[in-house]
């Protein structure tokens, strides 16, 4: 079997075995539906959710909050990280506070953000932005700072301006780290969205999970969890592909990731 088909078939076999174990366990030990739902009931929940369409507004709400917050958080992190890496003065002014904020568990701030930004979309977007900011921020700084001194000397010998050096050398040199930051921020931003929805929301997959837990509707909870997994996987996969395409010179697969 070719390594490509092995990469597809083998994980599928694992999935089959797990599914079988799931079904068998429920049958054998007679587990009630309010503890572990059957795969059939989860499928049923997914069908009523996505075919009949009840989940779509929730799915899209969570997706929207996540993407918007992610873009804002990562964008700000890129700009502020670049400024901080470039300016010692700026660093001295803000760095201690940024570290303090990084050490604060962002989840603990969620209720505060809800109070400040309301119970609608804004609070979720802020929460996502805040939580996806840090890994991206730290990675941008580390990436820019590790630009090889030889490359910088080279540019200085040829009288390149600071801006020219930044865009032509430092930013591309940091690209590998920046994409590593983008990749972990995907997962963190989903956490941010769900937590904000847990705290208070009338929409979203996080809200659905909470509502279902009150009704002990585990099939719905499982279906929502699966939906979150799909968003997370799609996001990280997208970032991985973009990383390979855009940073083609970076052959290191697993960059040490700084941050959370």
């Amino acid at each position, binding site marked *: 079997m070719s390594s490509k088909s092995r990469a597809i078939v083998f994980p599928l076999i694992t999935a089959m075995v797990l599914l079988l174990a799931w079904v068998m366990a429920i049958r054998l030990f007679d587990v009630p539906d309010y503890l572990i739902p059957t795969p059939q009931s989860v499928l049923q929940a997914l069908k009523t959710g996505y075919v009949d369409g009840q989940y779509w507004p929730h799915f899209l709400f969570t997706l929207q909050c996540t993407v918007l917050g992610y873009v804002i958080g990562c964008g700000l992190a890129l700009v502020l990280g670049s400024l901080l890496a470039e300016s010692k003065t700026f660093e001295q002014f803000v760095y201690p506070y940024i570290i303090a904020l990084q050490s604060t568990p962002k989840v603990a701030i969620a209720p505060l953000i809800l109070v400040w930004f309301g119970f609608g979309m804004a609070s979720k977007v802020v929460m996502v932005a805040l939580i996806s900011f840090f890994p991206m921020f730290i990675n941008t700084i580390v990436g820019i700072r590790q630009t*090889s001194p*030889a*490359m910088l*000397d*080279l*540019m*200085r*010998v*040829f*009288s*390149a*301006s600071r801006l*020219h050096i930044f865009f*032509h*050398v430092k930013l*591309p040199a940091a*690209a590998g780290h920046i994409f590593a930051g983008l990749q972990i921020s995907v997962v963190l931003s989903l956490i941010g969205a769900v937590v904000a929805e847990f705290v208070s929301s009338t929409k979203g997959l996080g809200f659905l999970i909470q509502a279902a837990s009150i009704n002990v509707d585990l099939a719905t909870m499982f279906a929502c969890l699966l939906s979150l997994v799909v968003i997370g996987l799609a996001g990280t996969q997208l970032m991985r592909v973009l990383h390979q395409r855009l*940073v*083609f*010179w970076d*052959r290191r697969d697993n960059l040490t990731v700084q941050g959370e």
Partner: protein
Amino acid sequence: MAIALQARDNEHATDASPAPVSTPMVEARDLGVTYRASRGPVAAIERLSMTLGQGEFVSVVGPSGCGKSTLIKVFSGLLAPSCGSVTFRGSAIDGPRPDVGMVFQQATLLPWKTVLANVLVPARALKLDRRKAEHDAEELLRLVGLSNFAKHYPSELSGGMQQRVGIARGLIHDPALLLMDEPFSALDTMTRDHMSLELQRIWMAKRKSALFITHSIPEAVFLSDRVLVMSARPGRIIRELRIELPRPRDLSTLVDPRFTAICSELRQLFEQLVHV
């Protein structure tokens, strides 16, 4: 067949220059560079004087850690001297200059740019006319034998090829002076010999003033009009040899008795340097 070989002895060479060329293009006088280190200041270079004439190829050899790279950093304007003076065509070097090119120890190519774009890096930094620069870059790639690799990325090139791109890049803005800091030190011996031939060919085509730093005696002798020997730290020029072997020199030069005589003389000098 009698070509005079002159080896000038200059034991206390505070001024190593016999002024062979009318006015030197580059001149260092009583140059001193002191680094601040944790255990107090360290003198990398002390009272160093040397000249480089128009169109002349000069090598500086010396034991490792003698301040050769520091010297080239001063000439490139990356490092300010602590005392003494360095001048370029009579005016003090107080920062990087657009008429100086440099080739580094490692090729230091930007991996996200093609070979052609890498050669164009100085041209873009200096905001030179784009079309002319592109034309020149193609010309230079032909000169270094890499016209077919213009669209390749550095990772697809061997070490020797990368360093040839580095040489082309050092020449793209048509500098009057080319500084080379041990450009072949990262290459294997076979490639080095070949690169020396290449460099001589390129230099003869361009006739730039060139300052070449190396720790390889044969390389220095093969390439240069003059070889300057630096002492161990703090570095000074303690000896100057004029190499009057005819050009173009080729692989047969390497076994020429005059060539080997100079090399062994230099090697003996090195021995003394290390044991003192």
